[in-house]
């Protein structure tokens, strides 16, 4: 299929869904741009899942129209429509009698792909979601952890390379630690694949982390539909304000990626000259803290130039840090940075790459600057 870039991929127009006298979704309209992630969020019973399920017609709308790439979904044959839309649900729904590979191959098989094409696709997808194809292909779902199962669920939804993904609280049943890992992986995969994603959740942190746009729903209606920064900075009314919570400045930090805010680090190589260089840095540039690295630029620890004099030994001067304890990565969010700082009681953290080489640093001042901006825009 050929899709233009940046156009409207999903268009929902005056959608209403009633169950008897109860109106689950009340005359809502919105669009999702191609290649973006739109998150629908709201309290239980706000109609967010119902809305999502009308897109692939798991539920039929009572009134209104839904267009996918300009075509009314009601004009498409049900099965054809669904095979072109990836669908991920909270309970994963991996088929227990099929291996991981067979589960992923379901839609390609429905589309009559050849055997070798399916095999190659399965391997590619498993790698994409971070699982070793040779180890996982022949496993059965009951041999997987919750996080692994959900990865397979995402791989299965992507199997036939659909332009659209519908995700209904996909990470809701995963423990918080794994959920964050999955969210990060999702962002990474999405950056690569640029699918049009409609994602339902009740977890605002999750929404803020992954969304290009957030739709907040209440009692079947849309309360606010904006980019996450605006939702967090200027909630439209009291409902959104309360829903977003008083810690919205903190939440907003997860919209900022370290790579955009890190500075060049000051680091000195471990060795005999270490203390001399440290003293020089203090006296000439008034630098208090410096990173100590080995010959490969890999982090060993940090050093307070203020306590260095002729009598200190290198061992006393350098505070060694354990792997990963205060370091952050280029793709970490400023919220994670702040959590590290508070947890370890430091005001600056080093940014390291995959080989633990120091490539930058972020300070508490940088973070304060961003939170001040939020406060300012809220007061206006």
């Amino acid at each position, binding site marked *: 299929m050929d899709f233009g870039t940046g156009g409207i991929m999903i268009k929902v127009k005056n959608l209403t869904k009633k169950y008897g006298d109860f109106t689950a979704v009340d005359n809502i309209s919105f669009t999702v741009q191609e290649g973006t992630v739109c998150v629908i969020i709201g309290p239980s019973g706000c109609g967010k899942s119902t809305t999502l399920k009308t897109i692939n017609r798991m539920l039929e709308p009572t009134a209104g129209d839904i267009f996918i790439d300009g075509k009314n979904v009601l004009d498409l044959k049900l099965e054809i429509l669904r095979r072109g839309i990836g669908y991920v*649900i909270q309970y994963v729904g991996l088929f227990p*009698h099929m291996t991981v590979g067979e589960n992923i191959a379901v839609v390609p098989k429905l589309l009559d792909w050849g055997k070798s094409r399916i095999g190659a696709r399965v391997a590619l997808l498993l790698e994409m979601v971070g699982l070793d194809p040779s180890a996982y292909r022949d496993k059965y779902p009951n*041999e997987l952890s919750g996080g692994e199962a959900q990865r397979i669920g995402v791989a299965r939804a992507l199997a036939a390379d659909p332009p659209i993904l519908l995700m209904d609280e996909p990470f809701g049943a995963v423990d918080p630690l794994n959920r964050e890992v999955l969210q990060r992986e999702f962002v990474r995969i999405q950056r690569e694949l640029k699918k049009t994603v409609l994602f339902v959740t009740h977890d605002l942190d999750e929404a803020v982390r992954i969304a290009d746009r957030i739709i907040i729903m209440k009692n079947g209606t849309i309360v606010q539909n904006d980019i996450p920064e605006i939702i967090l900075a200027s909630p439209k009314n009291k409902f959104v304000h309360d829903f977003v919570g008083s810690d919205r400045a903190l939440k907003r930090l997860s919209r900022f990626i370290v790579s955009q805010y890190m500075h060049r680090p000051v680091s000195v190589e471990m060795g005999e000259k270490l203390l001399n260089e440290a003293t020089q840095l203090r006296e000439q540039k008034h630098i208090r803290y410096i990173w100590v690295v080995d010959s490969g630029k890999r982090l060993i620890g940090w050093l307070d130039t203020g306590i260095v004099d002729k009598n200190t030994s290198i061992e006393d001067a350098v505070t060694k840090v354990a792997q990963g304890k205060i370091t952050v990565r280029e793709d970490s969010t400023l919220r994670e940075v702040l959590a590290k700082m508070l947890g370890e009681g430091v005001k600056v953290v080093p940014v390291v790459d995959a080989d633990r080489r120091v490539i930058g640093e972020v300070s508490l001042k940088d973070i304060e600057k961003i939170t001040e901006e939020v406060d300012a825009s809220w007061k206006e």
Partner: protein
Amino acid sequence: MERVNRQKILRWIPIAGVSVLFLLIVFDRRFLELLLAFIFPGETVVIYPRAGLPGLLGEHLLLVLFSSLAAVGIGVAVGVFVTRPAGREYLHLVNDLSSLAQTIPPVAVLALAVPFIGFGFKPTVLALFLYSILPIIRNSVAGIETISPYLIEAARGMGMTRLQVLLKIELPLALRVIMAGIRTSVVINVGTATVGAVVGAGGLGTPIISGLVRENPAFVIEGAVAAALLAFLMDQYLGRIEQGLSERYGLEAGG
């Protein structure tokens, strides 16, 4: 791996032993004669004279085969029908009927059947069919109904037609439970079919009835032992198939 194989082989030994014993009793007339003469030294005739065990076994198996095949075919079909949207309104009715019918003892079913459908082979097959269809319907419904609705949602959401969902998801997942129903029904059938002799259907019940009438316990034992061993072996072999199915589908750990 070797340990598992060893265990598997060990578990087959008792079944293999009983199988050999069964074949000896049915097909080696001299062995049977010696055995029965040893147990009943007072009887002059220890083997039912009017028909040999191989022929009786054949009749017996035909009774079971016809009634069970029909029961499996129709039972699974009914189970599938009442779990479809179109047939769902009959689900409770079918469930109630099958649990009610299960409370009637099999012998009573035959006894009740005779006045309506008469004597002989065909009526007996019909009565056996009616009785043995119930565990199959019940298990088909249970097997399909216990599948998580999320699996069906996932399958439908991926673009499977209703027929594909049934064939690729529901039936494979329900197969183990359905197979358990078939096993129960066949084993009950093997036992119940002996009563068929009363209504003139032949089978392994014939020497039993004759023995009772002529007060010759050897005849009774001849038929009863053969029928009991047959039921035991059916149960064991079908059980193995059932287990093989669940292993093949990786469902041992609860699925």
